[in-house]
């Protein structure tokens, strides 16, 4: 039995957690939900004794009868991995790239003196088989880079549960994974909890994940638990306004007036894109990988077209070709009949009609430029720079809800949501016909995401924009697109009106995607939908 009692945490005098009390029952899944900065990860780190420097805590974190917060670092080392295991969000960096997976799992056992090397390898073999990596197919001598993201996360889970800990903490364990992989990992966690009788603390921003997995849910806001209770009861009542706000934000559908569909704007015909792969041997020729295999579609003026697919399906490669950044190996992309090709000689008259917003609000801007210069960058595409740049930047910023005074500030002074607004302003500045949104809302919290979706809907109506909306997130695509394309391994497997595709998917892969997407059972939402 793990019990947090009035846990309060300050870091360098700044309040992080306030009176957090939470019971984590054995054999049950406890969900901790909140937006970024709400303190949910810090709660987990406090339980592991892994707080950063300058942290001071009051209250208790009882693990059986011992207070974790009162333990020395040496006692904590013994406790971590042994009685408390942890899984992190990013399986790509959580494993040591130069150690085989079998050895990494065995290492935990050896460090805690639970087994000799030989026994440890035996246990590692059994553990890896349990998490779905049987030795026949995944030899213990494999290295992390030979595994996919989902397989690596399985290795992380095997490491975390190697010593049968009483508590397993999973911090956004599936956020970096594709939706079908996410479903498998969640199933695995559920099975482990049921079989081994351990407690699972599942930290996530996604209400739907919690709804499908947790027995008990706590909702966290600004360092406090604002509401907690058994999952179904909590979802049925939603007593706290913040819970309701989170819920409605995650289901947000911007108001969209049905727009008249214009003439074809962008046509992609049998686009083929090959990638060179690593050379085989010292003098071997580089191989090649076909990432886009003859894709065709048309984007009409004023239309919002969704492109859905999992990572590695070729959607980003296709985007780069559409933007004229990479050359095609076959087929053609045309903007109202004008050919788009890569290379510096692509006419800027074509380029300025298409702009893009990227996923990562932190990597999208040169940190050494002021906002005015950042937003004005696409003016490079104009035949001559307009003389009223400052006015135009101000009005573009105003359009996306950023006060024009922000022009003289640097990008680090803005939050993720604000940065994404500035990125949209940059895309708008040349008055384009098409904006490509490459996972543009995937990195944002649900409430911020809802605001950005509203903004996109408004801008589209005001400026008559067409969107190519690329995402792995089905719920967002459903909310904002008119038509949708489903892409898998370089091919479009299904296309159609968004509502129709979601209501009656014809291709098996689309059905699989929709089934894997976590949802909150419809009858739990009675009061809100009425």
């Amino acid at each position, binding site marked *: 039995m793990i019990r947090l009692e009035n846990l309060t945490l300050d870091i360098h005098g700044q309040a992080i957690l306030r009176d957090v009390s939470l019971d984590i029952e054995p054999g049950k899944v406890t969900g901790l939900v909140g937006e970024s900065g709400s303190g949910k990860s810090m709660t987990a780190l406090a339980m592991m004794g892994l707080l*950063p*420097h300058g942290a001071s805590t009051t209250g208790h974190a009882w693990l059986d009868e011992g207070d974790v917060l009162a333990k020395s670092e040496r006692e904590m080392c013994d406790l971590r991995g042994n009685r408390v295991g942890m899984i992190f969000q990013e399986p790509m960096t959580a494993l040591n790239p130069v150690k085989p997976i079998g050895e990494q799992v065995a290492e935990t056992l050896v460090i805690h003196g639970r087994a000799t090397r030989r026994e440890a390898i035996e246990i590692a073999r059994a553990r890896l088989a349990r998490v779905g990596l049987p030795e026949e197919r995944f030899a213990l001598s494999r290295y992390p880079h030979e595994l996919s993201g989902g397989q690596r996360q399985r290795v992380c889970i095997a490491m975390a549960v190697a010593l049968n800990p009483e508590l397993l903490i999973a911090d956004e364990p599936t956020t970096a994974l594709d939706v079908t992989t996410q479903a498998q990992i969640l199933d695995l966690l559920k099975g482990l909890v049921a079989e081994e009788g351990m407690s699972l603390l599942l930290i996530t921003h996604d209400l739907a994940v919690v709804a499908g997995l947790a027995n008990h849910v706590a909702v966290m806001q600004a360092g406090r638990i604002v509401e907690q209770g058994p999952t179904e009861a909590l979802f049925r009542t939603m007593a706290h306004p913040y819970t309701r706000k989170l819920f409605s934000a995650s289901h947000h559908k911007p108001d969209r007036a049905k727009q008249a569909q214009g003439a074809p704007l962008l046509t992609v015909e049998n686009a083929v894109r090959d990638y060179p792969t690593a050379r085989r041997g010292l003098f071997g020729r580089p191989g090649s990988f076909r990432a886009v295999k003859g894709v065709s579609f048309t984007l009409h003026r004023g239309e919002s077209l969704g492109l859905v697919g999992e990572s590695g399906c070729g959607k980003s490669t296709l985007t780069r070709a559409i*933007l004229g*950044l990479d050359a095609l190996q076959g087929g053609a992309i045309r903007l109202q009949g004008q050919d788009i090709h890569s290379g*510096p000689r*692509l006419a*800027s008259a074509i*380029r*300025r009609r*298409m*702009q*893009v917003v*990227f*996923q*990562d609000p932190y*990597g*999208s*801007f*040169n*940190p*050494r430029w002021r906002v005015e210069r950042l937003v004005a*960058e*696409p003016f*490079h*595409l104009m035949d001559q720079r307009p003389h009223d740049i400052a006015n135009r930047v101000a009005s573009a910023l105003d359009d996306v809800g950023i006060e024009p005074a922000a022009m003289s500030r640097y990008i680090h002074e803005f939050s993720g949501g604000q940065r994404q607004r500035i*990125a949209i302003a*940059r895309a708008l500045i040349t008055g384009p016909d098409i904006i490509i949104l490459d996972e543009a809302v995937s990195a944002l919290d649900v409430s911020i995401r809802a605001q950005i979706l509203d903004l996109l809907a408004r801008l589209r109506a005001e400026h008559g924009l067409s969107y190519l909306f690329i995402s792995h997130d089905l719920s967002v695509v459903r909310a904002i697109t008119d038509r949708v394309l489903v892409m898998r391994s370089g091919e479009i497997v299904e296309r159609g009106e968004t509502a129709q595709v979601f209501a009656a998917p014809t291709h098996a892969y689309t059905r699989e995607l929709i089934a894997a997407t976590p949802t909150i059972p419809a009858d739990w939402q009675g009061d809100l939908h009425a």
Partner: protein
Amino acid sequence: MKLNAQLWIGGVLTALFIAAALVSFIWTPHDVTALTIADKLKPPSALYLLGTDHFGRDLLSMLMVGARTSIAVALLAVGIGMGLGVPLGLLAAATRGSLLDEVVMRGNDLIFAFPSLVIAILITAVFGPSAVNAILAIGIFNIPVFARVTRGGALRLWTLDYILAARVAGKGRLRISFEHILPNITSLLIVQGTIQFSLGILAEAALSYVGLGAQPPTPSWGRMLAEAQTMIYTNPALAILPGLAIVAMVLGLNLMGDGLRDLLDPRVRRARG
């Protein structure tokens, strides 16, 4: 922010030598080319603060002018290295994987493969010993260092979204290199520049020690060391003082380089918490 002691000590030491070198342009206690044989090998006194050498020249004055020689040679050598290495590195990164990239980087490897001081001796031996040839010799070996640092830093930046955004804005690779890449690797270059500067001082001292650097009568620390060698038992101060000057200057620059890296490199800054 916590006081960065390294940066302070290094900065003060370096500033001291630069000040001495600058002052020597307009004033030195004595003329370094005037030989006063009557006053040879004098101990420190009010007239000669650090004493005199075997020709009766004032040691303090020689050290001041020597600092000028060292700093000038090292600075110009770093200038050559940066001036050619940084553009080459930017070019290699911008055309990653192309023939040009290969040519630049393998050319780098070629220069790296030779022990730098030996080649410097070769160059000065072929073209004659002079301060200019010393500058060229040291400078050439700075080129691959800067090219490599620049390329490494630039490659990391080329994968970022804001570079992609600049390409969508129709900017060419050259323009992106100078507008986006260069400003974001300046901190790397400053740190590397400080380190190369201190290595340049050492290399200049070594070259003039073997008589291939600045020629007499221009004083230089390396040659002062060489000339004092025969008198090391009778007049140890003659060897110790220029030796100390070299050590203090190089130490100062290295401390400053480390301090600057702590201050400017966000990765180190984060690691320190």
